[in-house]
C-alpha cells in the first residue's frame, strides 16, 4: 500500500461511522493507540550532506534500514544525528521514496552503484515506479549480459571439462568450430567443398567448345561428364558423412531433424541419390533434370558459416506480414492496371494485350520501372494509362521498400522489447496480486493471530512486527466484517466452500447426519473456530462438517462444550472452549438450515450428535 495512503487511514476509519447504524453486529474494540509521542524531525547526515524529515515519514516502511531500529546503529551521539557514509546523490532518491512512496531510477547513475545503495538501505528494487522500471530493467539486463559475455569468453578459452562424452564433444565441435583444431579443420573443409560443389554446378552449364565430330556447342558438363560426376560424388559423400555425424552427435535428434539447417542438408544431397537410383529413362529424365535444380540449395549450407545470413533469414521471417502486405497491394495494383490496359488496348489492331493475364506482364514490367519494351501500348488512352501505371509503380514499390528496410531493424528490436515487456508485465501483475493478497493475507493472519493470542491469557494482541498502520487497517476491515456479518476468506477456502455448496445439493443420505452439521455452531466465535479448522486442523468435528456450508440465517450459540463422540477424535477441541465463553456475542438474525454432508466414513460415529444439537444450540435472532 502506498505510504501516502497511510495518511488517509484516519479518514477511512472515520468514514466507517457510516456503517454503524446498519451494522448487524457490535464492532470490535479498536486497538490501543500508543502513538502518543510527538512527531519529530530526524536529521540524517549522509557524507556531509544533511537531510531532514519527519520521523513518521521514515517509519512508513518498517522493513527497511531507515524505518526500523537498524538506524540506531548509525546514531552519532556527539552531533545528535544519524550519520551514513554513503553516496548523498543516490540517497536523495532513497529519501524521496519514503516521502512520496515512489522509487525512481536516475538515468545518469551507474546501475551497480544504485543497486548497492538499495541493498544497503534494505529497499527491494521491485518497487521502482512504472516510469523508471523499464529503464532500470534494461540497464540491469545489459549489465548482466556484459558480465555474462565476459564470463563466457573466459570459459571458452578454458580446457574442455574432461568428463564430457565423445558425443558431447563432437556436438560442441560442430557448434563452435574454434574450440579445437579438428573442428576448425572440419569447418573449413566442409566450407571448401560447399564452394566447390556450387562452382561445379555453375561451370557444368558453360559451353565448352565443340566435340571433334559435332557442330553444336556442348556444355562442359557433357564434355567432361565423368570428371564432374566424380566431383559431385565426392562432395555428396562429404556432405552425407557430415550430416550423419551431426545426426549422431545431436543431443536431441528429433529437434535436429526438424531444424531448418538439417532440411537444407537433406535437400542438398537428395538429388544425387535419387539420380543414382533412377535409370537413364527418357520419361523421367525431365523430372530428374528438375531435381538437379535443388542442388543449388547447397549454397544455403553457407548460412552455418555466416551469421549475417542467419540474421537476414530471421528478420525476413519476422517481417513476413509487412512483405505480405506489400505483395497484396502490388497484386491489387497489377490487376487494376492490367484490366484498364486491356480494355484500353482492345480496340487497336495487332495489339499484344491479348488477355488480362497477358497484360499482367506489361503492368509488372512498367510498375517496377523495368520497361523491357516487348509490349507497348499504341492507343492514346493506353499511353495515358501506361504513364499513370509507371508513376504509381514508383509510389507503390519504391516507397514501401525503405519502410520495410527500416521496419526490419525496428521490428527486430521491437519484438525483443515486446517479449521483455510481456515478461515484465507478468511479473508486475504478479507483484500487484501478491501485494493485494499480501494485504488480505496480512488481515487473515492478523485474525488468526488474534485467535491464538487470545488463547494465551492476557497476551498482547499486537505482535511487535505489525506497525500501527496495519493494526488500524485490520481493525477497519474487522468492522466491515461485523457490519455485513460476512467474513473475509482467502481464495482456497472460498473455492472449497464453493465446491461444497455444489456437492451438498444432493438429498440427505441419513437423517442422523443432518443435525451433525448443525454442530457447526456458527456463532461468531465458533466461526473463528471454523477459521481455525481451516488453517489449523484442530477440530476434526467442525472440519468434518466443513462441507455443509449453506444459507445461514440464525447463528447458533454454543453454551457448553460439546460432548460428542467426535471430541475424542480431536484432543485439542477443548482449546476452543475458552473462546466460546469469552465472547458471548448475540449475533445477527441468520438462520442456519442444517444441510447434510456427503457421506463420509468418519461421519458414522456421530450418533450422539442429534442429542447434543438440540440441547446446546440456542437460536437467537438479533435486532
Amino acid at each position, binding site marked *: 500500500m502506498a505510504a501516502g495512503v497511510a495518511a488517509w487511514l484516519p479518514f477511512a476509519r472515520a468514514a466507517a461511522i457510516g456503517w454503524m447504524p446498519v451494522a448487524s453486529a457490535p464492532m470490535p474494540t479498536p486497538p490501543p493507540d500508543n502513538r502518543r509521542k510527538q512527531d519529530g524531525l530526524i536529521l540524517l547526515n549522509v557524507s556531509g550532506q544533511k537531510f531532514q524529515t519527519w520521523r513518521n515519514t521514515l517509519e512508513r516502511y518498517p522493513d527497511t534500514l531507515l524505518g526500523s531500529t537498524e538506524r540506531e546503529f548509525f546514531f552519532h551521539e556527539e552531533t545528535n544525528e544519524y550519520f551514513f557514509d554513503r553516496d548523498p546523490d543516490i540517497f536523495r532518491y532513497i529519501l524521496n521514496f519514503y516521502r512520496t512512496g515512489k522509487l525512481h531510477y536516475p538515468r545518469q547513475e551507474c546501475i551497480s552503484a544504485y543497486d548497492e545503495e538499495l541493498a544497503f538501505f534494505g529497499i527491494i528494487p521491485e518497487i521502482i515506479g512504472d516510469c523508471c522500471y523499464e529503464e532500470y530493467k534494461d540497464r540491469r539486463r545489459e549489465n548482466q549480459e556484459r558480465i555474462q559475455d565476459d564470463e563466457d569468453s573466459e570459459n571458452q578459452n578454458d580446457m574442455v571439462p574432461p568428463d564430457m562424452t565423445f558425443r558431447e564433444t563432437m556436438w560442441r565441435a560442430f557448434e563452435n568450430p574454434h574450440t579445437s583444431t579438428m573442428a576448425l579443420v572440419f569447418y573449413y573443409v566442409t566450407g571448401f567443398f560447399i564452394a566447390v560443389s556450387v562452382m561445379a554446378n555453375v561451370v557444368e552449364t558453360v559451353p565448352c567448345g565443340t566435340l571433334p565430330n559435332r557442330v553444336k556447342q556442348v556444355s562442359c558438363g557433357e564434355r567432361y561428364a565423368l570428371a564432374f560426376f566424380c566431383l559431385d560424388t565426392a562432395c555428396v559423400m562429404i556432405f552425407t558423412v557430415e550430416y550423419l555425424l551431426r545426426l549422431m552427435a545431436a543431443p536431441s535428434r528429433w529437434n535436429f531433424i526438424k531444424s531448418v539447417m538439417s532440411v537444407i542438408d537433406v535437400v542438398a544431397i537428395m538429388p544425387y541419390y535419387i539420380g543414382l537410383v533412377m535409370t537413364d529413362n527418357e520419361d523421367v529424365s525431365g523430372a530428374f533434370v528438375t531435381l538437379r535444380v535443388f542442388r543449388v540449395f547447397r549454397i544455403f549450407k553457407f548460412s552455418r558459416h555466416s551469421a549475417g545470413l542467419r540474421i537476414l533469414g530471421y528478420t525476413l521471417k519476422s517481417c513476413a506480414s509487412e512483405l505480405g502486405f506489400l505483395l497484396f497491394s502490388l497484386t491489387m495494383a497489377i490487376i487494376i492496371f492490367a484490366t484498364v490496359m486491356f480494355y484500353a488496348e482492345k480496340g487497336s489492331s495487332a495489339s499484344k494485350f491479348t488477355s488480362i493475364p497477358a497484360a499482367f506482364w506489361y503492368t509488372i514490367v512498367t510498375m517496377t520501372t523495368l520497361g523491357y519494351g516487348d509490349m507497348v501500348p499504341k492507343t492514346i488512352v493506353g499511353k495515358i494509362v501506361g504513364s499513370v501505371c509507371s508513376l504509381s509503380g514508383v509510389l507503390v514499390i519504391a516507397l514501401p521498400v525503405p519502410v520495410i528496410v527500416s521496419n526490419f531493424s525496428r521490428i527486430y528490436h521491437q519484438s525483443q522489447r515486446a517479449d521483455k515487456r510481456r515478461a515484465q508485465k507478468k511479473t508486475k501483475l504478479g507483484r500487484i496480486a501478491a501485494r493485494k493478497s499480501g494485504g488480505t493475507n496480512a488481515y487473515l493472519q492478523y485474525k488468526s493471530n488474534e485467535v491464538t493470542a487470545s488463547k494465551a491469557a492476557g497476551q498482547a494482541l499486537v505482535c511487535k512486527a505489525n506497525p500501527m498502520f496495519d493494526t488500524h487497517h485490520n481493525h477497519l476491515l474487522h468492522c466491515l*466484517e461485523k457490519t455485513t456479518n460476512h467474513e473475509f476468506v482467502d481464495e482456497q477456502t472460498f473455492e472449497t466452500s464453493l465446491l461444497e455448496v455444489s456437492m451438498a445439493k444432493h438429498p440427505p443420505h441419513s437423517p442422523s447426519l443432518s443435525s451433525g452439521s448443525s454442530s457447526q455452531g456458527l456463532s461468531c466465535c465458533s466461526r473463528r473456530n471454523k477459521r481455525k479448522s481451516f488453517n489449523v486442523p484442530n477440530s476434526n468435528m467442525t472440519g468434518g462438517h466443513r462441507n455443509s456450508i449453506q444459507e445461514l440465517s440464525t447463528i447458533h450459540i454454543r453454551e457448553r462444550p460439546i460432548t460428542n463422540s467426535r471430541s475424542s477424535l480431536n484432543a485439542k477441541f477443548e482449546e476452543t472452549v475458552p473462546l466460546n465463553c469469552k465472547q458471548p456475542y448475540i449475533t*445477527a438474525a441468520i438462520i442456519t438450515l442444517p444441510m447434510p454432508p456427503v457421506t463420509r466414513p468418519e461421519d458414522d460415529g456421530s450418533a450422539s450428535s442429534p442429542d447434543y444439537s438440540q440441547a446446546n444450540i440456542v437460536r437467537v435472532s438479533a435486532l
Partner: protein
Amino acid sequence: MSSCRKRCKREMFKFAQYLYRLVTGTLHADSVEDELELSAVRHRPEGLEQLEALTRFNRKELQILYRGFKNECPSGVVNEDTFKDIYSQFFPQGDASTYAHFLFNAFDTDKDGSVSFEDFVMGLSILLRGSVQEKLNWAFNLYDINKDGYITKEEMLDIMKAIYDMMGKCTYPLLKDDTPRQHVEIFFQKMDKNKDGVVTIDEFIDCCQNDENIMRSMQLFDNVI
C-alpha cells in the same frame, strides 16, 4: 429550407478547407484543447485560524491532517476518481467504488464535484469530534442519497449493496444476491416506526439512540487523530 442551405454551405466550406490542407500538407490541425490542460486546478485552503474556528481540531491536528491531504493530492482538491482510488486501496478484496461515490457526495457539501481541504476537515470534525446527534445526522445524510429528508428502501438498498460490494467475492458465508435486501428489510423493521416505507431523520435518530450497540460504536473512532 434555409437551414438546409446553410448547413450545405458550411459542409462545402469545410470540404474546401480539407482539400486546401491536403494540398499544402497540413492535415493535422493543432488542437486547441491542449492549451486548456495546462491550467490545472489549484486550490489553497483557508487560513489555519479560520479552520480552527470552523472545526473542532486544534492547530497541531490540522497541520497533520493537511500534510497528509496535500501529500496525496498536491493540487489541493480531490476529485471523485482520486477519491475512489484512495478509498479502494483500503479494501483490496472488494470493489469500494460505489460506496466511495456515496461517501464523496456526503463530504462534498457544496456539491462542486471536488472535495477541498475545508470539506474534508469539516466532515472529519463532525465524525471525530461531533456529538452523537451530529454523527447520526451525518450518517443519515449519507444514506439519504437524494437529500430529500427521507430514506427510502431503494436508497438503503443501494447503500447496502455498496457496502457488501466492499466485501468482495471471497467471503464466508457465501454472499447471496438477496443478502443486502434482507439486511435492508431488517433495518427498516427496526427503524421505520410508523411503517410508512420511509425513514425520517427523527425516526432514525430516535431509534439509534435507543440502541446500545450503535451508541457504543459511535464513540469508537474518537481518538483516531
